[in-house]
């Protein structure tokens, strides 16, 4: 080995050592944050934008100096819409990457899959999607709506004169837990309002169902019996064929309004909305809400989508689960600041009663005991530009009832989070 190569080797090893050193310094100064959303497979359609929203929020927090003087370092993994993989990746984030918190999951089954892992390892998960309730884990914070924050107000609106005064209800859903639980709650609620069983029809379709001819024909038949509303918990992809069939068979919103709980701005991007004007959706946030926080939020998102060259950036929209992701990350950051540490038990304590001025125009509060947000409910009508026009909203945020009083046996449940429920 001559001298020159010796020097070379030396500088090389020195620089490698320096790199390692700088890496370890950096590692000490960041807080790792896990993002557990499917980027491939069937759920990628919904979850990809949540991943991007989480990254944007983290970037913004970092731009303001991070949390407790440390920058947030996102760790993105792809559970590929595969439910066992959610559990595996969750465990990996918690034990290998040692993240302080995880933001993720969309479907209930993915949450159910990771739940035992988070309870076993005492991790912290923020779940940003509206769901069926019937769960309250000390290791999960639910920033989406429970059924009483979405479904019941929507039906109350349909019953009112403003909403068309529906007398008959066609409950249409994809066959999985969220629609079934929601419909169970709605049926009990409708009974309590004096609607008889003959005026309620409950139909479920398999996942990915694409041929709605028979069902739309049945809706028409059912609707001939009196003023009818359809309450749709049809999942993501099946909505396009459903709405197209509805429009082509001449069923207008004035005849039979459809209120959907899983159709937001993102889903409408894939639909020509002109024939759908007047159909409804119930959420806790719409992009069209007018307030300065939301204007900032929407503009930031559009700029981010453009800067990162996300697919379809020119038509980027925000929606409810994205807002819930945004709110969740900020609330966690606030709680970490308050607790002064990322220790899960302390952060959990600090999160109770935490509040945040959200893009929905309300100041949202994390409940002191039940791990759910107090959320306002808005009913939006589909407009021809793919946006929603809010036609009704609650006066103030509602407290979540994850254990719905309309399901027997729930009155005995405690109103605070307990493991293994």
């Amino acid at each position, binding site marked *: 080995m001559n001298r020159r190569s010796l020097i070379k080797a030396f500088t090389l090893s020195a620089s490698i050592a320096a790199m390692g050193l700088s890496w370890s310094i950096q590692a000490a100064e960041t807080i790792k944050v896990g993002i557990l959303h499917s980027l491939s497979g069937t759920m*990628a*359609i919904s979850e990809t934008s949540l991943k991007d929203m989480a990254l944007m929020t983290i970037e913004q927090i970092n731009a303001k100096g991070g949390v407790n003087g440390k920058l947030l370092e996102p760790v993105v993994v792809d559970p590929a819409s595969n439910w066992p993989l959610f559990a595996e990746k969750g465990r990996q984030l918690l034990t290998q990457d040692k993240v302080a918190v995880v933001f993720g999951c969309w479907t209930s089954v993915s949450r159910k899959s990771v739940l035992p892992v988070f309870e076993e390892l005492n991790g912290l998960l923020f779940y940003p999607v509206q769901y069926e309730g019937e769960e309250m884990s000390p290791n999960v914070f639910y920033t989406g709506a429970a059924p009483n924050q979405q479904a019941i107000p929507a039906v109350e609106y349909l019953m009112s*004169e403003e909403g068309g005064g529906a007398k008959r209800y066609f409950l249409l859903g994809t066959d999985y837990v969220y629609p079934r639980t929601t419909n169970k709650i709605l049926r009990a609620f409708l009974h309590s309002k004096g609607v008889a069983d003959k005026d309620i029809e409950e139909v479920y379709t398999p996942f990915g169902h694409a041929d709605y*001819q028979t069902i739309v024909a049945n809706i*028409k038949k059912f609707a001939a019996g009196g003023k009818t509303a359809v309450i749709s918990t049809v999942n993501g992809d099946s909505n396009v064929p459903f709405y197209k069939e509805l429009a*082509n068979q*001449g069923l207008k919103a004035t005849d039979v309004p459809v209120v959907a709980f899983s159709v937001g701005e993102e889903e409408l991007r*894939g639909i020509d909305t002109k024939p759908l004007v007047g159909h409804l959706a119930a959420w806790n946030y719409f992009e069209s809400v007018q307030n300065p926080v939301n204007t900032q939020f929407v503009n930031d998102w559009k700029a981010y989508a453009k800067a990162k060259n996300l*697919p379809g950036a020119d038509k980027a929209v925000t929606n409810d689960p994205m807002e819930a992701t945004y709110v969740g990350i900020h609330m966690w950051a606030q709680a970490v600041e308050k607790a002064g540490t990322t220790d899960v038990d302390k952060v959990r304590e600090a999160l109770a009663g935490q509040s945040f001025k959200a893009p929905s125009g309300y100041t949202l509060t994390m409940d002191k005991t039940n791990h759910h947000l107090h959320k306002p409910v808005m009913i939006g009508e589909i407009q021809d530009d793919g946006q929603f026009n809010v036609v009704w909203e609650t006066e103030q945020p509602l407290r979540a009832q994850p254990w719905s009083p309309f399901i027997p046996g729930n009155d005995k449940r405690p109103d605070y989070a307990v493991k293994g429920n």
Partner: protein
Amino acid sequence: MLRLLLTLLLLLPLATQASEGEYFITAKPAEQVSLLEGWAAQPDAARLPLLDNLHQGRIAEGDTRKLRLNNRLRGLLENTLASHQLLSDVAKVRLAAAQQLQKSAQPAQVAFLDRRYAIEADAAVRAALGLVLANLQLAAPEPSVRLAAVRLLGETGDPMARTRLEALLEPGVETDTNVRTAAETSLAQVKRKLLFGELLGQAFSGLSLGSILLLAALGLAITFGLLGVINMAHGEMLMLGAYATYVVQVLIARYAPGAIEFYPLIALPVAFAVSAGVGMLLERTVIRHLYGRPLETLLATWGISLILIQAIRLLFGAQNVEVANPAWLSGGLQVLPNLVLPYSRLVIIGFALFVVLLTWLLLNRTRLGLNVRAVTQNRNMAACCGVPTGRVDMLAFGLGSGIAGLGGVALSQIGNVGPDLGQSYIIDSFLVVVLGGVGQLAGSLWAAFGLGIANKLLEPQIGAVLGKILILALIILFIQKRPQGLFALKGRVID
């Protein structure tokens, strides 16, 4: 002076209209409701432009203020508009208005409707108006009026008539025995008509589903049926066709908005070219090396499909893209009061048959078709006779893929256009081809329509899922009996 007065007089209706519009937009919803109800009972032809504008969500053309309507107001507005349109000179407009009123007319409108009925000259409109009145007259105090109304309702096949008659027949509602018996007869009549419509609807939806399966499977009938390639990427050829449609739509909307109505027609050759091009590329680079090893083509093409899906996902995003129905494919043909045949589905049925015909002609009436069949039956012999087998393989694979692309254009009109589009059709496509008999176009035709109709007949009875499972079980059993499918090639070849 006189001229001024005259102009003022002429302007008067415009002025009242403007002020009514102003009043409407500032009114509270409850006032808007009573306003509309009042207008519906006493229509005034001068108000028609205003109502037209309101219906389009504005108070006047060029006025940028957006009118916020809800469904209740929209319903009332439609009723009021129809009420006004009865004053129109055009019989067609009056007919449509009368049909709308059959659904929505209110008792307060009876007086006005009676007047119109008396002076209506057009027979069709008069009949429609008669039904509007009959609906309302069911509550009339005189039994004779009710009797006539009940009899008239028996003539229609309107599902609403059934509900109204059933309500009348509830115990204690109708006291007159004559009217009761007439209502019972009418109800039976209406039910019969409704049942007929329902059955027809089921048959149609079966045909429509069949045509979709056929379009999805037809390309596979060539790539799998003739070339023996288990093309798991076939679904992605459909998907490429659908995305080509989307791109054509976007481009036309940007550069030639005048032609937007016809974008699906322009998309057809584009989709064919894109899918066929990708297909030929794949054939040259990958599949060519795998002929005679069908199970391995399965794995390789599955890999191709994964790559295509992810590539589309990165290019266009994971979300579905918007493909709108042009006006001539929106809406439907009202055949019976309870049967609407959507134009898009009608067109797709026709299109499917057209593509089958085209493929058949291509395979049986052209030199390429002759070559393809020759290579299919005996590759070595064909090569000896001077058929360029490599080229024929490529062209045949391109043809199969291109037809799948055409299928994609059709699918984009009724369902989602997203990266996973193809995945949902691949199993069905294979079943159609296997059931029909590999290598048989006619077999695929029968299998597709058979499966479609069987599916739609079973769905109302046992639900969509069990229906599908039952059909899968039946296919498995059927294959036991006829392992080569419905239309098997007869031969004595054995290895």
